[in-house]
């Protein structure tokens, strides 16, 4: 875990209110694992007071094209939903972000899993892309299923490693299959060894229902909760699990789906 200020070296507005930031952050890039997150200061004043948790979206690696990321760079994918995210999205090239991370326990593919199915609801795709990057590099087969309301929210295929099989659903049918991301899964699940998901609670619930039909499939999900400290000291971010209330920031954000009380 480090705390430092890292400069913004690229900024790209993927859709209105969705911004891709690249930071030059060697120390972070080296330490980061897919599924972990950073806790970012949003301003220099006491208002807003708390940092905001943002998933590690990608890290650059020498010799691998990860959506144009240079080695030593870290990418964050942001959606503006309130004051903190708006402040972040307004930063400009050269501005520095005060970042604490990498934090939490990331995704843990099983050693014997050869084909990973990643399921992203909306901006839940953010941490999955880094998992896809790593899995492809490790020679695994990866399918990414993503669902959003409309085409504008779909993560651009051109930014994914070309080895990734990409399936898209939009609620309004403006891109890919019309419907929810979970509608895509019956066709994809049979081919996968392990499932990794990030998205809203209803999506996770639907996923669990689907998996109950094929109990052998194991799934890990990345959860979100309001955070205070981000490092496990305040007990602000707990979720209900079968082992009691667990801290998203410290015991997660990635949990075994089976353990989570949805």
């Amino acid at each position: 875990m480090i705390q430092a200020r890292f400069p913004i070296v690229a900024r790209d507005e993927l859709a209105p209110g969705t911004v891709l930031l690249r930071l030059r952050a060697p120390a972070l890039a080296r330490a980061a694992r897919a599924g972990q997150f950073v806790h970012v200061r949003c301003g220099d004043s006491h208002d807003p007071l708390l940092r905001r948790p943002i998933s590690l979206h990608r890290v650059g690696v020498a010799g691998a094209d990860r959506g144009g990321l240079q080695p030593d760079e870290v990418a964050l994918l942001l959606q503006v939903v309130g004051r903190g995210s708006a402040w972040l999205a307004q930063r400009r090239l050269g501005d520095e972000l005060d970042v604490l991370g990498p934090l939490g326990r990331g995704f843990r593919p099983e050693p014997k899993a050869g084909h990973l199915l990643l399921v992203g609801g909306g901006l839940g795709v953010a941490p999955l892309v880094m998992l896809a990057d790593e899995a492809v590099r490790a020679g695994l087969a990866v399918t990414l299923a993503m669902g959003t309301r409309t085409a504008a929210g779909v993560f651009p295929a051109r930014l994914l490693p070309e080895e990734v099989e990409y399936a898209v659903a939009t609620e309004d049918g403006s891109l890919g299959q019309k419907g929810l991301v979970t509608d895509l899964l019956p066709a994809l699940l049979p081919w996968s060894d392990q499932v990794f998901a990030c998205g809203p609670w209803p999506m996770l619930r639907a996923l669990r229902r689907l998996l109950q039909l094929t109990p052998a499939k194991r799934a890990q999900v990345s959860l979100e909760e309001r955070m205070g400290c981000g490092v496990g000291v305040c007990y602000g971010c707990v979720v209900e699990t079968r082992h009691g209330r667990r801290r998203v920031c410290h015991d997660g954000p990635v949990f075994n789906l089976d353990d989570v009380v949805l």
Partner: protein
Amino acid sequence: MILPPNLSVELAPNHKQGLPLRNPVLTASGTFGYGTEYAALADCQRLGAIICKGTTLEPREGNPQPRLHETAAGLLNSIGLQNIGVRAVVAEKARIWAGWQVPVLVNIAGETVDEFARLAETLDGVPGVAGVEVNISCPNVDAGYVAFGARPETAAAVTRAVVQATDLPVMVKLSPNAPDVVEVARAVEAAGAHSLSLINTILGMAIDLRRRRPVFARATAGLSGPAVKPIALRLVYEVAQAVRVPVVGIGGIATTEDALEFLMAGATAVQVGTASFANPRAAADVVDGLAAFLLREGLQDIHDIIGVALPGRVPEGGLT
């Protein structure tokens, strides 16, 4: 030759071994875990002391979500004392602390006077535990808890029981929600507390506009952070004039300047709480900042500023 200024303070002068600290900067209970979580980042060993998460006899699951709500320069929390319980603290945490330079105090919370006494007893003589901070003021658990801190008699009863149950130095943490904080402070001092700390969080509230309901299941929650600093400072200033035992200032301290205000207002030491969330190094930064301040002002000892702003004190070297 310029000597490095002396930052050390004594937080339990009336206790037989005392509670000498290298510097007057502590971390506040519930905002620094067990000291282990931030250890990699902020150099905890340089702090005056660490106060661990509020500890109860049995492990507690705490309150349901939501537990946190951000306000202007403030934080409302309703954690409800989720903690691993005193046995796990002794078995797992104290063992680690015993190898540390920095003293660790265990913050304890009971539902009855007897529970407080048993907590204190359990911690007595445990290597790695330097003292207890008695939380008679947590606003996020059922009536029993808050009532102790609200009235002088109950606060004194808890204090007496704890002091009798342990040989450790006893710091009693006051609630700003008591009708008369100064009266509670006097009663707690008379009951044998070696030092007082204040403030715990202030009762506050927020409404969830979408649900048209209070954000928190218990409706009210505890307010902390820079927003409360002026109120905390006023209470410390009042209590410091009313008691002789050391007073430890808490409430919205984020910077060296904040800490200096509390020290000048009569606090012998300070605790950094919510500020650590935004800046995990906040407490360590304050240690450095206090040393730098004394050097710059040509002062040798932190006691040269403690209480200088109290009525009737002539500020040495202060421009008036």
